[in-house]
């Protein structure tokens, strides 16, 4: 009888758990997020606006501007064709830089992870480059590729390249020991182990690298433009700052922030679809 009871209690294990589709999107969570963050932004703007009404000696409005000027400037920028033309340049530099840099990092990472000798030879160099502040390369690229888009693409690609490279190598080489033994016991070939184990289990790590690279790509393009150019968002900001048009500077920054956010959300969306099976996916963005 004791034995029977034992069987009964543990058979509850067989009941189906309530199931929420993996990677599902929650509207309630999102609206809560928007509301909370919106309140913080509103409070910040109110304080800023209030301070700007103080004594100009105490609060130099000319270099700090105020929300009631920035928001109109922002909406004006959104409706101005020439602003969009400059942002379009930046967007292209970012996109091409990202594709070249991340793609190159992924391919070289695959190559390096294939052979232990390659890995040994390249790894110290990769770490060295990884720890160099790569924006410092901007002047070199300007002198190599000129003032146009190609120097910004080169800088952007160089900055994107390393996080993807490092994460690809890490992702492809770090596999759970028993999973590797399982493949061995199933007599899987090198290619099968790569195809069925290494590659899929590396996706979360590689994706983390890609996400970082996406933001880095934009940084690369902007830094390139701040260094030397006559077009792009970086150029707009620099010009406006020289002319003390602070409301425009902040407006352009806001646009950049929104572009950055859009890229980040896009990456998050892709991540949820692609690696819905991974435990960390449900973590807040």
């Amino acid at each position: 009888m004791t034995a029977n009871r034992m069987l009964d209690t543990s058979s509850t294990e067989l009941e189906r758990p309530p199931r929420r589709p993996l990677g599902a999107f929650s509207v309630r969570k999102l609206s809560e997020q928007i509301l909370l963050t919106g309140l913080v932004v509103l409070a910040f703007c109110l304080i800023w606006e209030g301070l700007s009404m103080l004594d100009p000696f105490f609060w130099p409005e000319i270099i700090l501007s105020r929300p009631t000027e920035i928001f109109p400037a922002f909406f004006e920028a959104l409706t101005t064709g020439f602003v969009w033309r400059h942002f379009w340049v930046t967007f292209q530099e970012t996109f091409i830089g990202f594709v070249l840099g991340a793609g190159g990092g992924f391919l070289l990472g695959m190559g390096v992870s294939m052979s232990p000798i390659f890995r040994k030879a390249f790894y110290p160099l990769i770490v060295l480059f990884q720890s160099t502040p790569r924006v410092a390369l901007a002047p070199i690229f300007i002198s190599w590729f000129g003032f146009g888009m190609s120097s910004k693409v080169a800088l952007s690609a160089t900055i994107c390249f390393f996080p993807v490279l490092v994460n690809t190598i890490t992702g492809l080489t770090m596999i759970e020991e028993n999973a590797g033994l399982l493949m061995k016991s199933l007599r899987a070939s090198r290619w099968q182990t790569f195809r069925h184990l290494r590659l899929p289990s590396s996706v979360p790590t590689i994706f983390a690298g890609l996400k970082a690279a996406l933001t880095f790509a934009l940084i690369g393009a902007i830094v390139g433009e701040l260094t030397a150019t006559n077009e792009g968002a970086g150029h707009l900001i620099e010009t406006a700052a020289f002319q003390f048009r602070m409301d425009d500077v902040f407006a352009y920054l806001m646009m950049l922030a929104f572009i950055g956010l859009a890229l980040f959300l896009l990456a998050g969306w892709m991540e949820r679809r692609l690696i819905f099976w991974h435990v960390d996916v449900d973590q807040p963005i």
Partner: protein
Amino acid sequence: MVSVEAAGFRQGAGAVLHLDRITQVFDKRGDPLVALSDVSLNVRRGEFISLVGPSGCGKSTMLKIIAGLLAPTSGSVYLGGSLITEPRAEIGFMFQTSTLFPWRSVTRNITLPLEIAGASRDWNERVADVIDLVQLNGFEHHYPRELSGGMQQRVALSRLLVSDPSLMLLDEPFGALDEFTREHLNTELARIVERTNKTTMFVTHNIPEAVFLSDRVAVMGSAPGRILEVMDVDLPRPRVPASRLRPEYAEIVYRIREILGLH
């Protein structure tokens, strides 16, 4: 009830698996560590044999050697008369961690061995059979992270069964589970091996579990890893939860504890 295996004899009558003086020495930063010392053992076809012993007695190492995942320092393993030098299709291995691939659904985890072996794609019936056998019905399209630890081990077990190995090597498969789930899965495993009649080697440090499941229990000691004694378990089959009420059960458990110096 107690029988000691004589070391050093060639393949015994009826033995399908024959371990001949296996020694395994690991090099731990210059210090030689003797994981297994001169271990010999014969396993009969269809037999369920457990290896019990404290951590570090080399029981998992022994399983890896039999699986062809690890070459012994000296000695040989024969399966059906032929020397094992590498993993084989007729040997299935199950780990303490489920080692399920989280990006694959339950069904696709189970078909992994078939895909790797390049089996023809008409495996649906076979997969449905093992899902039935381990009672995973209704979970076919779930992903591993949606399952409890016990359910995950059921999936791992069906992945092992799907390629119909003649020898199953189970390395503490229920070691990470809670006591209720473990006992329940023990009952299930007893039912499955009695139905499929596969030769099984089962590593555990849980003595009652080993006795409940096995035809024989090899009791191992550590430093160096070796077999202290091989016990026959004369409990009638089928093994059901009530088998634990039998006096022989308690007696064998007691004897094994004694050999391991637990009294």
